[in-house]
């Protein structure tokens, strides 16, 4: 239990650090900055209670909001992701995911990819509709969601693949 707590604290701080110092500065094609911090919410231990992950996600989002001047868009997207995470877990791992006591990081890569895809779509759709906040710019919002979502998916897959190989050995 204690080890879990420590892992999560380290994950929280290091993902925030890399998000702000490295991934917010990539500007691939001028505007594409992948979001790695949502790995924290995806990899958070699966428990029956949900209030703690929602509060931590809110905190994580608000911290990023202060750095990017996005008001509360990150926070809203993170809280929604945390709230809907059980739905995606059930879709990917089946109804009995709670019984199996699984660790997300130790599951097979194809299921992980699917989970990542669902989570990124939810997060990015909410985030970019709040950031753009203009109904007449739906196409632009979609363009941002798709392009940055794809970048996030690729980068997160690489990070997961790197850490998975370490967990097994």
């Amino acid at each position, binding site marked *: 239990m204690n080890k879990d707590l420590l892992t999560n604290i380290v994950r929280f701080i290091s993902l925030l650090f890399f998000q702000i110092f490295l991934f917010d500065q990539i500007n691939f094609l001028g505007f594409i900055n992948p979001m790695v911090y949502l790995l924290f919410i995806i990899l958070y231990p699966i428990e029956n209670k949900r*209030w703690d992950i929602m509060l931590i996600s809110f905190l994580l989002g608000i911290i990023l909001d202060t750095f990017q*001047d996005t008001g509360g868009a990150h926070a809203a997207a993170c809280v929604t992701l945390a709230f809907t995470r059980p739905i995606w877990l059930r879709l990917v791992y089946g109804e009995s995911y709670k019984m199996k006591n699984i660790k997300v990081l130790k599951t097979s890569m194809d299921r992980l990819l699917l989970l990542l895809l669902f989570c990124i779509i939810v997060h990015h759709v909410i985030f970019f509709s709040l950031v753009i906040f203009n109904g007449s*710019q739906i196409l632009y919002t979609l363009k941002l969601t798709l392009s940055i979502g794809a970048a996030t998916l690729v980068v997160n897959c690489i990070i997961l693949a790197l850490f998975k190989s370490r967990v097994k050995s």
Partner: protein
Amino acid sequence: MQQIFNFLIKYRNLLLYLFLMVIAVTFTIQSHDYHRSTTIHSTGKITGGILSTRNGVYDYFDLINHNKKLSEENASLRMRLLEIGDTLLGKETTLTFTDSIPYNIFPARVIKNDFYKSDNYITIDIGANQGIQPDMGVISTSGIVGVTDRSNEKFSRVISILNSQISLNAQIKGTSTIGSLKWDGYDPYVMSLEDVPRLAQVKKGDTIITGKQSTLFPSDILIGEVQDAQLVENGSRYKITVRLFNDMTDLDHIYVIKNRDQKAIQEIDTLGTNE
């Protein structure tokens, strides 16, 4: 009573979610509103400090580019100095007139810049300690950048011209035609000049500069060139597409302009409306 508690316990996750969501969306709406001061912003002591550390790290990767830009600016200032020198009588220098110039200029560096959102902000590394206040114009070597918004002791936030809330007074160079400059929210290289009268003479390639009515910027600061002009509102007004001279996606050294007479001008301007 029991039922209320049961309800609260049963739906505690949903209620917590809705509660957090309301807070987050409130912050978001605040951030899109120019006139309200926002709760979540990037000029805090810790945030500003971390952002300026980040800038310090990335500075090294771009030193050659910075040097080139600064030396180009030096060259163009030198040219202007020579121009003024020619028109002055005798051996007087321009420096003796500093008191009569109504503008103070503060050099600053950009530590955070955005351009893909619909309301973009820039964070700069000078603040109230250096004399920065809200509503001061910000320019770079090649054109206008934005207007200061809020500041603490060490950092300030600038509303970028790439912000849907901003509307600036601009003018076609060589004529007295004025319009208001706005951003449509798509392309960081293009803005549009609206409310230009139908009778105005507009050509492709005309230069757009800041107008004399602006209290934020000195007049004749470069903005961009005319790319396209269309008649809108049943042909009564022009909407002009302006390609910016400034590359808003690549900002570093900028200048904040303080207008000594801003308050006085605004007081005179509002006289008529109050009566």
